[in-house]
């Protein structure tokens, strides 16, 4: 009974955290299940994947119905993420994982620094606009009406640098497959810092797509009997509640808090990757 409740509470935390940041919660759940509950690493990853899908479904339901998530953009990016994941999976054994982890750690720290240096929104500015957190579009990059880029625009923002955003989504798939981190940790900064989406729209759109990627991996884990249903069930219950709750209260959480939480996560994952590059550490 106590173990079941603890697993549900862990799922609640991962679901709430993942729904707020568009990361799925695996960063929290895998170490918690592997180190805290002593599950084999593969089982922890398998249950984490189920929790990511639950987080994605529960939060995306809210974000899509409220018009915060950008379904068209999410699907466009997802094509490249899946292709990147396949490429990453195929070349995983041909590359030096430590070198990759080191490079990824440096990249995450750079992204964390960039996000941390963004100035807060000006007083009186509408919260939904979040304009101070967007990068200025390149002066020569006018969005052509009727173009692919124009069709991916949100209700109060344009999408910029689509080719670069697509390339980074492919990179998100590659690093996801190579290093076992969720694609959201690359896609949210890419959408926010490169493509100019407001942070709330970036995290919401990431939540729509991470479940799609995770579902393909989860099927493989089930086929290999790596899912323990008795552990997964309470985690799923907690995750559904946490993700739904977080998605509903997200508009009331200050944007600065979400941004700083994301920066902290980036730094923590960067440290994990650096430890991995040096030959130790726990993958997430």
């Amino acid at each position, binding site marked *: 009974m106590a173990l079941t409740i603890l697993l549900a509470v862990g799922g609640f935390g991962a679901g709430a955290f993942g729904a707020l940041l568009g990361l799925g919660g695996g960063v929290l759940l895998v170490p918690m299940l592997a180190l805290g509950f002593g599950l084999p690493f593969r089982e922890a990853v398998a249950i984490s994947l*189920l929790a990511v*899908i639950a987080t994605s479904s529960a939060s995306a339901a809210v974000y899509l119905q409220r018009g915060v998530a950008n379904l068209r953009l999410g699907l466009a990016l997802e094509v490249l993420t899946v292709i990147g994941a396949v490429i990453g999976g195929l070349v995983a054994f041909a590359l030096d994982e430590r070198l990759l982890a080191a490079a990824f750690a440096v990249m995450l720290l750079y992204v964390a620094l960039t996000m941390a240096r963004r100035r807060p929104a000006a007083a009186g500015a509408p919260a939904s606009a979040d304009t101070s957190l967007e990068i200025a579009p390149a002066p020569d990059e006018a969005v052509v009406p009727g173009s692919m880029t124009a069709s991916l625009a949100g209700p109060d923002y344009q999408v910029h640098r689509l080719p670069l955003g697509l390339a980074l989504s492919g990179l998100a798939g590659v690093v996801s497959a190579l290093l076992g981190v969720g694609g959201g940790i690359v896609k949210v900064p890419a959408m926010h810092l490169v493509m100019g989406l407001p942070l709330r729209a970036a995290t919401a759109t990431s939540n729509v797509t991470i479940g*799609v990627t995770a579902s393909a991996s989860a099927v493989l884990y089930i086929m290999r009997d790596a899912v323990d249903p008795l552990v997964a*069930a309470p985690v*799923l219950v907690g995750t559904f509640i946490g993700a739904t709750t977080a998605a509903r209260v997200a508009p009331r959480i200050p944007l600065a808090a979400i941004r700083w939480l994301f920066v902290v996560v980036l730094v923590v994952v960067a440290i994990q990757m650096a430890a991995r590059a040096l030959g130790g550490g726990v993958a997430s």
Partner: protein
Amino acid sequence: MIVRGTSASVGRLLRVGAAGAFGLAVVGVVLGLAAGIDPTLAPSPPPSPGDWLAALQALDPLAFVWAAIGLTIALPTASVVLAAVGFTRAGDRRAAATAALVLVTLGCALLIAIVVG
């Protein structure tokens, strides 16, 4: 803001599906607790499709939990299928083609993983 159209339809599907999966998982957990099943037991494979209905009728906790897991995993793909259908009906060929492309890449990825892995 409440949006209508394909995004809202996909949102509704996810909300209903997530609620269903949540309900099945809760029933499985409650039945498991009532039966005194230890969550640290060895993993149990899902029941064969032919036995599933009988297992649910017999209030087997694992049948409910596996049904919740199955529904959870099916939801994202179902949402992309619904998006493809919705965009097609709305005459948005570009978005419909993108959704279809996601399904194709997912299918290919799964196939490659099964063959290579």
